[in-house]
């Protein structure tokens, strides 16, 4: 394992300390229990937005705390859900009297911990709603699994929902926007290499030099198929076809197209993928109304990418375009 770390067990805490130092104009970091909170909060009359999850997916979620996006984020250990005491403390810190929305990725650990936190917060008189993101088409959605994983859509939902909350819409209205983004969004990812969890010290899985894994999860969970490496054009087709079929996206639809790097892939390759994506969508008369290209929901040092498409309407577009000021996403200000 080659990593820029001191001690594996100190990685999360040192990164939190650094975020506090680097982004003191945007966020404050609270410890024991650990959470990142927007400065100047809670904003009275505004729904508070809280997300969280295991660390190792940076900039998600801590990098999305700030005006126009999240009010707080709870970081867990690497790839391990945070705990209810963190979520309860963060929920209390961001409640401006209009309630708090928890945005939760569909993983069993995250769901159970957020449920316990919501129970505790309700017992203290705070109104809490939760929206679960589950956009990964690589996983069969059936009664016999934990259901689809929450991945790329989460980033876009946090941005769009954050804008709705900033307009001081009600908790129900803000939650409905979040559910709509999730319902309209689909994602598929692929890996060229494994990631290495610092405390494990070795790659999570073995992937030969000339092979790739299609449908990978953001913790290195196995995907749909392992095969010989193909061209960017072929890979893009393999990722986008199941996405288009699943919603389904149709001729004339307008989409937000998100090409995401998993941590170990350079931006230039993400642009190569975007080029192929634009060709495929153009051929089907699906309009890319907005795009986001870069590494926003990562899997440590994994090489690979994911593609997320969200079907947009005028309301979602205007919320996407609204100002945002976080360390991870920033525009319109």
């Amino acid at each position, binding site marked *: 394992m080659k990593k820029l770390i001191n001690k594996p067990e100190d990685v999360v805490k040192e990164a939190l300390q650094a975020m506090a130092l680097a982004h003191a104009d945007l966020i404050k970091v609270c410890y024991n229990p650990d959470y990142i909170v927007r400065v100047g909060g809670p904003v009275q009359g505004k729904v508070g937005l809280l997300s969280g999850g295991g660390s190792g997916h940076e900039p998600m979620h801590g990098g999305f705390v700030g005006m126009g996006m999240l009010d707080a984020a709870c970081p867990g250990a690497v790839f*391990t859900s945070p705990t209810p005491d963190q979520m309860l403390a963060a929920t209390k810190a961001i409640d401006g009297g209009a309630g708090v929305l928890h945005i939760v990725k569909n993983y069993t650990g995250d769901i159970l911990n957020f449920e316990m936190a919501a129970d505790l917060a309700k017992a203290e008189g705070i109104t809490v709603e939760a929206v679960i993101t589950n956009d990964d088409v690589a996983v069969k959605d059936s009664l016999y699994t*934990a259901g689809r994983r929450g991945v790329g859509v989460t980033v876009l939902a946090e941005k769009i929902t954050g804008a709705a909350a900033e307009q001081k819409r009600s908790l129900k209205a803000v939650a409905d926007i979040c559910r709509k983004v999730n319902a309209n969004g689909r994602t598929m990812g692929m890996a060229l290499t494994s990631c290495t*969890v610092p405390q494990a010290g070795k790659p999570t899985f073995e992937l030969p030099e000339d092979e790739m894994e299609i449908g990978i999860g953001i913790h290195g969970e*196995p995907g749909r198929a392992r095969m010989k490496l193909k061209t960017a054009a072929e890979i893009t087709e393999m990722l986008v076809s199941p996405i288009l079929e699943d919603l389904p996206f149709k001729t004339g639809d307008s989409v937000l197209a998100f090409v995401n790097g998993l941590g170990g892939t350079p931006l230039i390759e993400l642009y190569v993928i975007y080029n192929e994506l634009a060709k495929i969508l153009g051929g089907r008369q699906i309009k890319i109304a907005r795009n986001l290209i870069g590494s926003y929901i990562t899997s440590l040092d994994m090489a690979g990418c994911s593609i997320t498409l969200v079907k947009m309407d005028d309301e979602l577009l205007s919320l996407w375009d609204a100002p945002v000021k976080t360390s991870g996403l920033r525009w319109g200000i």
Partner: protein
Amino acid sequence: MTVQRDDVIAWIQAFTAAITENKGYLTQLDSDIGDGDHGTNMDRGFQAVSAKVPELADKDIGAILKTVGMTLVSTVGGASGPLYGTFFLQAGSATTGKLELSLADWVAALQAGVDGVIMRGKASPGDKTMIDALTPALQTLKESASKGSGFAVALRASADACEQGMLATIPLVARKGRASYLGERSAGHQDPGATSSHLLLRAAAQVWANQEG
């Protein structure tokens, strides 16, 4: 025979030692079908519990178990934090104010704990989870109690049933948690949560029934 406050603390300490000893084994089981952190996460939680033991001595059994539960909830994370945390919180609620436990009290505590895990995790028997080990353990304990068995005999029978339930998870296809993403590929592996559940009830049998081995 009854179980005193000191015995409850000794059980928690024995389980902590078993988790530490089996940390690598639990993590290996979890690497096969999950995300490879069950041993690490449980060990982190029970080390935190160990640090709290000195402040437990003068508390009643319900309060001891609730403290264990709250500590797990706030330190373990993942799915096992809320599940084991809920187990101890509910078992603690069922033993509020008790300074000793009869077999009937332990049946009530285990029932409450298992019900709590089912309520929180929504798993059913056969889903390849800790419930597959805990449910037969509870059932056997209840049968022993209704037959009029002694506490020690009942504890051993319950731990044995737990072990059988744990082994019976091997051929199952997971329907809950991260292992469910593997579908058929999850068959042939022993469930890590069922394994730690067996360690929990085996520790109770060993410490409370003075059973060797």
